[in-house]
């Protein structure tokens, strides 16, 4: 069994595997996204309270879910690198950071856009969005720390420590922001506190969440492939790939 894990340490094998996965995952993801968005944005009935503007939930919630999961993935990959010194885990962590940050940004942006027709303001300091904002800062911190190191191996290790610290802190941050929000909420305005979601809205939402996870995986694999090629640019297998691509 360990030989199976050992293969994950080999860059050319990982490159080939990711290519095979992407070949079928990418079209499936795009299809699922298309179906989900059309279903959610066009075919579900409008919410009786928020009208049509609630539809952005089909992008906002999946993005937020994947942003969180992405951070945990990044921290886990970093931990694997730190403990077992697997360089491929370092590649995964570095590839996950910008992708996760992008999804967090999408969640923030769609959250703000949702706020305008619903509550009249472009930004709302409610618990969810504030937690998303802090998650965005955590991502930016990891990205900034990686860029600041000249020795990229040390950069990977430092970012692993930082993401682990962030991972421990995320539940604390979310809980304290949640609690802070409930403390300052005035009785007349309730920003969160949605009604239970109807099943006709639930299924497209679940589909969108699943397809966002798939989209994250696609972006992660694409980014990892690029990172692998960059890191191994002087090795034989990369040179062969490049010359084969050049000959086509």
């Amino acid at each position: 069994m360990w030989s199976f894990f050992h293969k994950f340490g080999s860059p050319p094998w990982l490159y080939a595997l990711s290519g095979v996965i992407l070949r079928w995952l990418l079209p499936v993801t795009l299809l699922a996204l298309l179906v989900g968005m059309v279903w959610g944005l066009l075919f579900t009935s409008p919410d009786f309270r928020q009208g049509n503007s609630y539809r952005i939930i089909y992008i906002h919630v999946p993005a937020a879910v994947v942003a969180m999961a992405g951070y945990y993935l990044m921290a886990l990959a970093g931990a694997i690198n730190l403990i077992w010194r697997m360089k491929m885990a370092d590649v995964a962590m570095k590839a996950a950071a910008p992708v996760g940050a992008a999804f967090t940004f999408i969640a923030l942006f769609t959250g703000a856009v949702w706020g305008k027709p619903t509550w009249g303001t472009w930004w709302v300091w409610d618990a969810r969005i504030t937690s998303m904002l802090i998650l965005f800062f955590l991502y930016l911190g990891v990205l900034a720390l990686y860029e600041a190191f000249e020795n990229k191996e040390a950069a990977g290790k430092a970012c692993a420590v930082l993401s682990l610290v962030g991972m421990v802190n995320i539940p604390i941050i979310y809980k304290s922001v949640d609690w802070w929000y409930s403390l300052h909420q005035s009785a007349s305005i309730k920003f969160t506190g949605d009604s239970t979601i109807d099943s006709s809205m639930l299924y497209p939402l679940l589909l969108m969440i699943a397809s966002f996870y798939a989209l994250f995986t696609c972006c992660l694999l694409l980014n990892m492939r690029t990172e692998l090629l960059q890191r191994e640019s002087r090795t034989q297998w990369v040179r062969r790939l490049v010359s084969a691509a050049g000959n086509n």
Partner: protein
Amino acid sequence: MSTNTAGTLLLAAKSLCLERGGRELFRDLSLEVHGGQLWQIEGPNGAGKTSLIRILCGLARYGYTGQVQRPVPQLYVGHHPAVKALLTPRENLAWHASGAGLYTDAQIESALARVGLYGYEDVPSHTLSAGQHRRVNLARLFLSSAPVWLLDEPFTAIDKSGIDELQSLLAAHVAAGGAVVMTSHHTLRVDFEVRFLHLAGSVT
């Protein structure tokens, strides 16, 4: 310091490979240091001498492959003098961050006298010159009981009498059964065999 370590294995490194900036500095380097030996690592600038010393003492943890065995305590003297400017030499040695030993006042004073800083024990170190800082750092060699000394360019910024003093100190340590691994461009004039480890630069 009396250690019955002459001849015993005090430090071993196996199959060290180091890559820096895309260049491979050394590959499959193995080293065995026994009591009573003095090793001098030499090579051109950038060949990885400092990196090798840092791997041997344990400061470098990533970026190399291979194993190092450290069966006995070590003393590392690096490029920086590790002297706090706001403390006196006496305080610097008494509270040294290396945690190596509990020294009495008398021991500290005699060590500082041996490096030529008699009378300077209680002045703030920011009034001392850089060369005097290095001598405070070298005073640790007189206080230490570690069998293995890893010294990175110990003769830098030392005057001639200091060089002689340091050479005889190294000789005494080796004669008592300890071991020294050092990098230096300086040619040692001692009356025993110096073993050389030559780092070529880049291994192609």
